[in-house]
């Protein structure tokens, strides 16, 4: 019996009944990884012995007892390397667990490997990784999306049951759409950021990659919650998301923002999403047209705020206390300069320079300050829209997966990959991408469902209703 394509509830059932032991699950998954990962390159690191030891000790009475979970290389796991796909952290071993890791351990999960990503979570294709790019399980010549491309490919390619990722401007939802899995970004403050190497402090959230919506709900129950170590995490009870999934969408109002159906979307993507909207109509939801008028500013606002915050967050990588240090520096400035020049990739440098610029004296008001004000307007758009509807439906990505190398020469083109996901982070609300079809050349298409702050229950319920009425989540890539 091969468990690698099972859902977590199915796996849990087999573990609880004793039909399989946790160690065997790990072994099967490791075999699958050995089999397909040379092609996918989703994993940066996998210590199978360590996973087996953890599996042997797993408490299968716990909600995730014996379930292997892959971790994006930006989240700190004690004793494991944490490179954030950057040369500057080559060799760095995390001395502590992120809060989400503690929660996974407490739930009995078996930590299974570290997945590839764009360096320091900056990118939309995982081509910015210092360790080589990951491939899309549906077409090995194409990108899996980014920045959590490794996690998306692993789950989409059935070499992980689930994976943690992070989403700052779409880095979970976009790769989930491109790899045909469920990618969830919670409301800002829902999940602790303690232990997440920071990119943009006011935008980052840890979220999940799973094959189904139910599994996303299950994992969110485990990782969500207030953390005294994270002052931005909100003290609010965590609902039992798995228990509110099955209510259907009859009577719900689902908003379709007109600014998200613009020229430039791949027509096959638009068709798939429109068909999904029709499905919701069939299921009894009321479809409402809404407007989010400040959508056009979202990418610009994001690239001012996120870069400003990251320019400060990445200042700590200086070779003084940990990580790589330039050899034979002649003085402190030389040490700083060469350490960072040698350690950071081009996109990271680009964003640090941009972020430093927008914060600098004389420009702060014109850029950073102004961007924060427009951010408030973007948040206002969603608040108004949610007075008219319970959740929003949009495409996740304007196109399906593009080819490796196709957009690397033009950073701005790359930035536009996030055009539908970015505003959600700026507003601090929740979003999930679920599979909603394939292009004629069998590339996955994602449907994004957006909920208001703390609206995960509604959002997941809406997602689940569509998923259960469609075959997409059962498709397996031809690896």
């Amino acid at each position, binding site marked *: 019996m091969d468990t690698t394509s099972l859902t977590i509830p199915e796996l849990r059932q087999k573990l609880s009944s004793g039909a399989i032991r946790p160690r065997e699950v790990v072994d099967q998954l490791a075999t699958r990884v050995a089999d397909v990962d040379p092609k996918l390159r989703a994993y940066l690191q996998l210590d199978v012995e360590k996973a087996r030891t953890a599996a042997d000790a797993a408490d299968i009475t716990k909600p995730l007892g014996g379930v292997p979970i892959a971790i994006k290389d930006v*989240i*700190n796991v004690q004793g494991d390397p*944490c490179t*954030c796909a950057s040369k500057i*952290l080559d060799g*760095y071993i*995390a*001395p*502590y667990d*992120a809060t989400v890791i503690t929660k996974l351990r407490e739930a009995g999960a078996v930590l299974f490997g570290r997945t590839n990503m764009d360096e320091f979570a900056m990118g939309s294709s995982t081509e910015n990784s210092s360790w080589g790019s990951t491939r899309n399980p549906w077409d090995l010549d194409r990108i899996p999306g980014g920045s959590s491309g490794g996690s998306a490919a692993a789950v989409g390619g059935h070499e992980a049951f689930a994976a943690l990722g992070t989403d700052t401007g779409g880095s979970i939802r976009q790769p989930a759409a491109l790899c045909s899995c469920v990618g969830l970004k919670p409301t800002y403050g829902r999940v602790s*950021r*303690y*232990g*997440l*190497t*920071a990119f943009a*402090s*006011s935008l980052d959230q840890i979220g999940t990659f799973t094959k189904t919506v139910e599994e996303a709900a299950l994992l969110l129950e485990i990782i969500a919650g207030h953390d*005294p*170590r*994270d*002052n*931005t995490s909100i003290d609010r009870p965590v609902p039992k998301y798995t228990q509110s999934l099955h209510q259907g969408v009859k009577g719900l109002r689902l908003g379709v923002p007109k600014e998200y159906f613009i020229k430039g979307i791949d027509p096959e993507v638009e068709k798939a999403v429109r068909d999904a909207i029709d499905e919701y109509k069939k299921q009894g939801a009321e479809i409402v047209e809404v407007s989010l008028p400040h959508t056009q500013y979202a990418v610009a606002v994001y690239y001012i705020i996120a870069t*400003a*915050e990251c*320019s*400060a967050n990445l*200042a*700590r990588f*200086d070779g*003084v*206390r*940990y990580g790589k240090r330039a050899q034979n520096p002649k003085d*402190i400035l030389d040490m*700083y300069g060469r350490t960072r020049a040698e350690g950071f990739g081009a996109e990271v440098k680009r964003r640090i320079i941009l972020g*430093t610029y927008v*914060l*600098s*004296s004389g420009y*702060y008001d014109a850029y*950073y300050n102004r961007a924060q004000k427009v951010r408030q307007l973007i948040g206002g758009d969603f608040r108004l829209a949610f007075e008219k509807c319970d959740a929003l439906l949009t495409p996740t990505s304007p196109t399906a997966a593009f080819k490796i190398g196709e957009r690397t020469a033009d950073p701005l083109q790359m930035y536009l990959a996030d055009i539908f996901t970015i505003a959600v982070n700026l507003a601090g609300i929740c979003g999930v991408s679920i599979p909603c079809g394939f292009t004629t050349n069998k590339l996955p298409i994602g449907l994004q469902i957006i909920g208001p702050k703390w609206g995960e229950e509604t959002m997941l319920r809406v997602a689940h209703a569509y998923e259960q009425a469609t075959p997409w989540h059962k498709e397996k890539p031809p690896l």
Partner: protein
Amino acid sequence: MSTTPLTAADYEVVIGLEVHCQLKTNTKMFCGCKNEFGGASNSHVCPVCLGLPGVLPVPNEEAIVKTLLTGEMLGCQIATRCKFDRKNYFYPDMPKNYQISQYDEPLCLGGAVTLDLLAYPKDAQKDPATVIDKPIRLTRIHLEEDVAKSFHFDDGTSGIDFNRAGTPLMEIVSEADMASAEEAFAYLSALKQIFVYGGVSDADMEKGQMRCDVNISIRPRGQKEYGTKCELKNLNSISGVRRAIKYEIARQIDVLGSGGTIRQETRRWDDDKGETTLMRVKEKAHDYRYFPEPDIQAVRTDHGLYDRAKERMPELPSAKKVRLTEKFGVSAYQAGVLAADAALADYFEKAAAPKPANGAAVANFLLNDFLATATGENPIPSLAPHFFGELAELSASGQINSKQAKEVFAQMFVTGRSPAVLVAELGLAQVSDVGALEAFCDQAIAANPKSVADFKAGKQNAVNALKGQVMKLSKGTANPQLVGDILVRKLSA
């Protein structure tokens, strides 16, 4: 325009001080590490204060309350919310290469430090030019985290101890209201007293618990525009600050007097050499790219924190002085000395409380006898307060005279036995029996005809020699007041 070189008297000095004060909290500003001096290097550290990847700051409420209390004690306007900002710059003692500080919304604005006479150095206290109770206005007080400590070794390498990194620091910026080195000295003494009173810091400069940078410029008397200012650093004691400022004033006068101009510089004070030397020329302000700290939510101070601070308001030195003079009858000067040290004032009150009417006597013993010979910083008697109370009562009631009291004072410290017991043991009861005293006086008069003659000739002071004789005859037990009266009566008859 005069062609003669200007002298010191022709200049006005303008001084502002920037003080950093280490707050006495249990833990650091943004993590749970111990806020403790000493300890093996890098022993009070954790991922947060080391700036490791993935860590987040969580503000120390106690540090906020202590800062609010300081603002309250200094009469500041208190902000209704506490917000932090990132101050960005690279240096090896900065774990994150940004410091979490406060930029445009400091916790406290305005306020003032009043320069009480006793805050001045002793020689300046007697100077009639010293302005009593001059208020030095404050610009602001804000909260931030301290940086690590760098060590530079002989082999050219450097080491960093992160024990200090992340400890809470309160920054107090004054207006340029000080006009002399003595006023700066008094400002720092007065500030230290406030910090100690409020329990917010021990503020010992030599331990680095209070640090001070001086901004100083001079201008010709009467000129409205400020002169170019220089910043002085590496000041390690309050008296060092005074010395450094005196030197710098002389230096600047010298430069201007010989036709030169002052360049805006940061200068390092060398206390051993007694001079300031150029550290760096200040060309333009460093761009710190301040922006609001996204990892910490702004917190309202009016939802409980300010109330907690107000509950801790101590009786301030000025109020204590008034109360001590009114309740215990001590002089204004004595009240000032007592109030300068909260623990000493507390000791005094315990000693004088059973009989407030003896307050002045208790104060005398405490200030004149105890403090005169006690060693160490801010000494408090090792004996229980009631020793002083008892001694004061014995003396005030005339059971022992002042000389005997001094003997008992010394003995009580040596033996630890109470004054009443010592008086009995040493047989020191003062003789006030008129008959006995008359006998001694007759003896002394008979034995000292010259003094008698001098007195009768008009030299009133001659009676003192006779008094001394009586004290000798009585082995120091005679009541000197009565002896004096009896002698004068007899000699005038």
